[in-house]
């Protein structure tokens, strides 16, 4: 019988044809109807009774169902009722086939859930037409349901819901969609009227809202406003209301519109605005906000012809805090500093763009603020000052506010600042000039010893430019071979022998020797210290080779390295390559790291120290005794030598404390098996005391200042060999023998 379905070869493919489940106990009718419907473009599944049909529905999902009403067993009505209770069949169109004169069946058909009825006949085209109509209606209905659902879902997602309001007695009638009820935090079963809505609005806002809405409604105007409400569960939300008037027969009958919960959007907008304009750490206005405020302030100052001031506040040695106590402590400190600075001016947190004009001629006062430019740099903007003295007074307040120690990471920190002042219009007419000149003044304050405020002057400007020039030249110093190393001998005073040298960097710039104090800090600041130090190691290795050949030099050249170089993973490799390149042993290079530097990065540095020690590079601790450090590291790190800081040496024989410190260091070094060397030895008295305390290796002007390499050779030949120096012979070897001559 299957070939019957192929009788209409030119009808659409099976999957496009509507699927009909045809149910009839009469084989003849079933067959005929099936054939007729297939002929007319339907895909027909036949079932010979109610049970068979319900069974079929487990397997297939027809687009519509045609049921013969009268069937033995489960008849059409019963079948219809049962399938309506099946999941997914509540909406499938069902056509009930009834007899011609059977009104009772028609009624029963509808009450059983049939979509429609059709009187059995041989009028196949009519049947097919009816089925198509039912399908179309059903599809339209499904689409409608779907788009209704989608709308509800979209509204839910958008935290939106519709409402209708009809004019009427009193406050009129309000209808809220389920979604709108959700927006208001109410259950669907509850009722909310206009009065209930108004109660959600805070009393302060309510009166204004009522006035505004009354005004809008009186003119049938569009209603669009944000209302801050308290939901019934106590949450504070912002609801956007937007509605239009509705008209019937030319009369305004009410409003239809939507509620939308825009709280999250508002919060996000506020947050974005805040992030864009305020520093996340301190909550102060950030660079962008400061620029905006300064520009506004300058506009006003220009217009009203008064002075304004910009104070650049830079914390002194903030890096030390970050480096020694960690970034968390540094952040903590910045927050406290911000809090104190804020109190130094009439700080206005928020400036509304529109509020400036509204506040009248004194409005620029609201621009006054302290902001954070970044790092440890802050700016105080004073939109109106009488004269420089006013600005100086604020600067003094700033310095005073930082006088009290700040308690971070369990300890007290003293964090002073250097303040640079630039006045409008005296020191600049625009933001850029004022910022630059306050920077110049701030650097002048730093040079003046920090913890002071300096106002800009043209004279300072020159120095600022010098610095920039210096920096750009320092960049080129290496390639121009302007850098040189000078060497200061380390002397064993018992044997009057040179036992090593310390290499010190000098910058030969256009015939002038730039002192290290003028460019090393700059190099540290700019990061140039890294290539500079790498160059120094290489140069020292080269020098070791030259001296080895010229006079048999076999000691070490000590090179100072900043801690950041120890953090570099390629340090060991670099040193290895440098000494290999010149064919000198690893121990020809000794590295000096200051105690402060070492303590800053103990963790990062220690791995490098161990690896260096393994290849034979000795480590010397510079400026020992000045750091506030735990001595525990001395026992765990592979250190060979301690250098007693020159400050203790200088005071030797003057203050008893210094000799106490020195003897303690010596005792410590001895107990740990470390060498000890004293720096900055300038006179015989110091030498004698040091020697008496047990320190025999020394360095200082008493013996020799740092010398260019050729001069050092000369010094060896002319001073050491002939033993002509005044200090030679002053002390004797502890074993009592005479001092020996310098090594060959």
């Amino acid at each position: 019988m299957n070939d019957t379905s192929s009788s209409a070869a030119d009808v659409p493919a099976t999957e496009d044809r509507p699927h009909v489940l045809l149910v009839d106990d009469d084989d003849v009718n079933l067959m005929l109807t099936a054939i007729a419907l297939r002929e007319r473009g339907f895909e027909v599944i036949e079932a010979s009774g109610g049970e068979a049909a319900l069974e079929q529905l487990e397997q297939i999902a027809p687009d519509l169902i045609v049921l013969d009403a009268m069937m033995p067993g489960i008849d059409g009505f019963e079948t219809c009722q049962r399938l309506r209770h099946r999941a997914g069949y509540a909406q499938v169109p069902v056509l009930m086939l009834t007899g011609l004169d059977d009104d009772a069946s028609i009624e029963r058909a509808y009450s059983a859930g049939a979509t429609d009825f059709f009187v059995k006949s041989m009028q196949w085209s009519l049947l097919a037409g009816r089925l198509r109509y039912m399908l179309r209606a059903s599809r339209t209905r499904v689409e409608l349901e779907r788009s209704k659902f989608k709308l509800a879902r979209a509204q839910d997602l958008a935290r939106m819901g519709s409402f209708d309001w009809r004019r009427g007695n009193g406050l009129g009638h309000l209808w809220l969609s389920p979604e709108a009820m959700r927006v208001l935090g109410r259950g669907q079963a509850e009722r909310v009227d206009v009065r209930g809505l108004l109660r959600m609005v805070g009393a302060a806002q309510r009166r204004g809202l009522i006035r505004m809405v009354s005004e809008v409604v009186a003119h049938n105007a569009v209603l669009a406003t944000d209302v801050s409400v308290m939901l019934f569960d106590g949450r504070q939300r912002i609801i956007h209301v937007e509605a239009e008037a509705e008209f019937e027969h030319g009369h305004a009958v009410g409003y239809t519109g939507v509620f939308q919960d825009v709280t999250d959007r508002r919060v996000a907008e506020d947050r974005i605005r805040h992030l864009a304009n305020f520093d996340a750490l301190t909550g102060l206005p950030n660079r962008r906000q400061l620029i905006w405020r300064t520009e506004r302030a300058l506009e006003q100052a220009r217009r009203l012809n008064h002075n304004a001031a910009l104070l650049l506040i830079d914390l002194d040695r903030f890096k030390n805090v970050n480096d020694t106590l960690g970034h968390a402590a540094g952040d903590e400190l910045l927050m406290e500093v911000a809090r104190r600075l804020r109190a130094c001016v009439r700080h206005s947190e928020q400036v509304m763009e529109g509020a400036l004009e509204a506040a009248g001629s004194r409005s620029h006062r609201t621009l006054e603020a302290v902001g954070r430019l970044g790092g440890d740099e802050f700016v105080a903007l004073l939109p109106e000052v009488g004269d420089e003295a006013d600005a100086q007074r604020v600067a003094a307040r700033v310095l005073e506010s930082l006088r009290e120690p700040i308690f971070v990471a369990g300890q007290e920190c003293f964090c002073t600042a250097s303040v640079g002042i630039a006045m409008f219009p005296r020191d600049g007419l625009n933001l850029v000039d004022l910022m630059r000149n306050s920077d110049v003044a701030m650097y002048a304050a730093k040079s003046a010893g920090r913890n002071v405020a300096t106002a800009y002057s043209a004279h300072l400007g020159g120095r600022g430019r010098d610095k920039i020039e210096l920096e750009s030249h320092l960049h080129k110093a290496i390639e121009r071979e302007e850098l040189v190393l000078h060497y200061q001998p380390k002397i064993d005073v018992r044997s009057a022998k040179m036992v090593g040298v310390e290499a010190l960097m000098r910058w030969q710039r256009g015939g002038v020797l730039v002192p290290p104090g003028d460019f090393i800090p700059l190099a540290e600041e700019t990061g140039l210290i890294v290539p500079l130090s790498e160059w120094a190691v290489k140069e020292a290795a080269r020098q070791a080779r030259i001296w080895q050949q010229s006079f048999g030099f076999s000691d070490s050249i000590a090179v100072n390295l900043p801690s950041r170089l120890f953090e570099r993973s390629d340090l060991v490799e670099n040193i290895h390559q440098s000494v290999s390149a010149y064919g000198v042993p690893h121990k020809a290079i000794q590295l000096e790291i200051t105690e402060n530097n070492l303590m800053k990065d103990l963790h990062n540095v220690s791995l490098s120290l161990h690896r260096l020690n393994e290849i034979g590079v000795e480590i010397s601790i510079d400026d020992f005794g000045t750091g506030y450090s735990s001595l525990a590291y001395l026992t765990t790190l592979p250190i060979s030598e301690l250098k007693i800081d020159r400050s203790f040496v200088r005071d030797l024989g003057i203050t008893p404390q210094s000799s106490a410190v020195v003897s303690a260091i010596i005792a410590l070094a001895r107990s740990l098996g470390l060498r000890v060397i004293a720096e900055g030895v300038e006179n015989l008295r110091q030498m004698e005391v040091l020697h008496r305390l047990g320190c025999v290796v020394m360095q200082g002007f008493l013996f020799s200042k740092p010398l260019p390499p050729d001069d050092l050779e000369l010094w060896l030949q002319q001073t050491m060999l002939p033993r002509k120096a005044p200090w030679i012979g002053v002390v004797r070897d502890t074993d009592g023998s005479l001092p020996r001559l310098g090594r060959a």
Partner: protein
Amino acid sequence: MPIFRRPPTLAPLGEEGARAGGAAPVWGAVLDAAALARLAELDPKGKAGLVARVVTTYTQSLGKLLEQLTVARTAGDANALRHVAHTLKSSSASVGALQLSGLCADIERKVRDRQTDGLDAQLEEMLREGARVLAALRAGTAGPQRLS
């Protein structure tokens, strides 16, 4: 736009009958020509041998239902009587056994309305007419040409 294709003309019964295996003259004696023509309309190209198949199905159904009728009559089962009458009413009309269909319609209505008036005589007549149609159809389809 017309949704359905309507066959331009009715296929002559003779042709359809010939294609169905030459049984047409026998069917013609008991089945209405117009009804058969309407059936043929369903299968305008005659490809499916539709008329013959419908008649075969009807013949089987009729045999079965007449037996059920006899049983129901003996048992006095009104529901079963009504069901047989209802089913035979429409299928007989479909194939053109109009006299039988008419009898069934009367009986169905009477059973539904609980009218016993002359019902027995009509049942007797229905059985007789049913048997006549069945005999005629069986004679026509029992031959070697009967479709399988």
